[in-house]
């Protein structure tokens, strides 16, 4: 355990019980117990959301049934942005508290965030084609989403390029924090750029006026995506904890 984790352990025994989970070994069984609950919640919310989206929400007047893609596209886009912020927060936490687990959580979140970003982009393209006529629309949201994908890939690549896991975690934290500050700036710039260059053509941001059922469908799917993310990231962080334990054991053996 790092000295910080020992200190946190002492603070935990003095009442701040949640800090006891700052040590990966303590967090591991907790994660294992939580995964099935979040997985089940994900399935339940998804079924509810898809039911609302496909069987209750009416066909849209302008876009026909193609608009039903929003029940996937919008929650995926929300999740991609939310996960990036959470990833940056874990990184910041690791920086401040110097705990190993925080960096591992950030590493665990990145691939899931990147996948959601990809799904948002893919579904955005497939929504754009029948609605606006082209496979790719350089509108503010999609373009910002594309840049977000680059930010995720950069984060994963940076961590992969640094051999020492603790150093990789700290470097990743700096990058994620720089990224999270830049994301609103990037979004604002792209929005401005888009209004200038799009001219008359409509952007994907103008979704059909929301019937209540449509909104609820999106919210339920967003909740499903959130529960799914928690389950998957907990599963991944368990693997990362085990991988790092193995590495440390090998290093000790080699060191003799």
């Amino acid at each position: 355990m790092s000295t910080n984790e020992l200190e946190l352990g002492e603070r935990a025994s003095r009442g701040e019980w949640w800090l006891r989970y700052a040590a990966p070994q303590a967090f591991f069984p907790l994660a294992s117990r939580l995964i099935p609950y979040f997985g089940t919640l994900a399935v339940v919310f998804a079924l509810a959301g898809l039911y609302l989206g496909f069987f209750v929400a009416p066909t849209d007047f302008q876009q026909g049934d193609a608009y039903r893609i929003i029940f996937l596209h919008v929650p995926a886009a929300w999740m991609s942005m939310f996960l990036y912020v959470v990833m940056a927060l874990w990184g910041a936490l690791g920086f401040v508290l110097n705990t190993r687990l925080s960096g591992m959580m950030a590493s665990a979140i990145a691939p899931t965030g990147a996948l959601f970003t990809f799904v948002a982009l893919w579904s955005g393209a497939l929504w754009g084609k029948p609605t606006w006529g082209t496979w790719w629309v350089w509108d503010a949201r999609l373009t910002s989403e594309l840049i977000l994908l680059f930010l995720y890939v950069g984060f994963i690549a940076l961590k992969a390029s640094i051999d020492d896991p603790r150093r990789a975690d700290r470097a990743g934290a700096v990058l994620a924090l720089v990224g999270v500050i830049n994301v609103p700036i990037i979004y604002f710039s792209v929005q401005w750029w888009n209004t200038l260059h799009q001219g008359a053509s409509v952007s994907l941001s103008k979704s059909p006026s929301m019937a209540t059922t449509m909104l609820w469908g999106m919210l339920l799917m967003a909740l499903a995506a959130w529960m799914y993310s928690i389950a998957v990231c907990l599963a991944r962080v368990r693997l990362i904890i085990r991988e790092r334990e193995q590495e440390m054991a090998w290093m000790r053996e080699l060191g003799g």
Partner: protein
Amino acid sequence: MNWGSVDAFLHMGGYGLFVWGSYGVGVLCVVIELLALKARARRLGGERA
């Protein structure tokens, strides 16, 4: 209910390719993610409680 038949459901008012192409890729990503986790666990060598 919106759909008269399973056929109409799959057809999605003519947009079936786009709608199911999107959800299909979404499901595919979930499957890939879960399989990748399983493969990673296998490489570590067996389950731990």
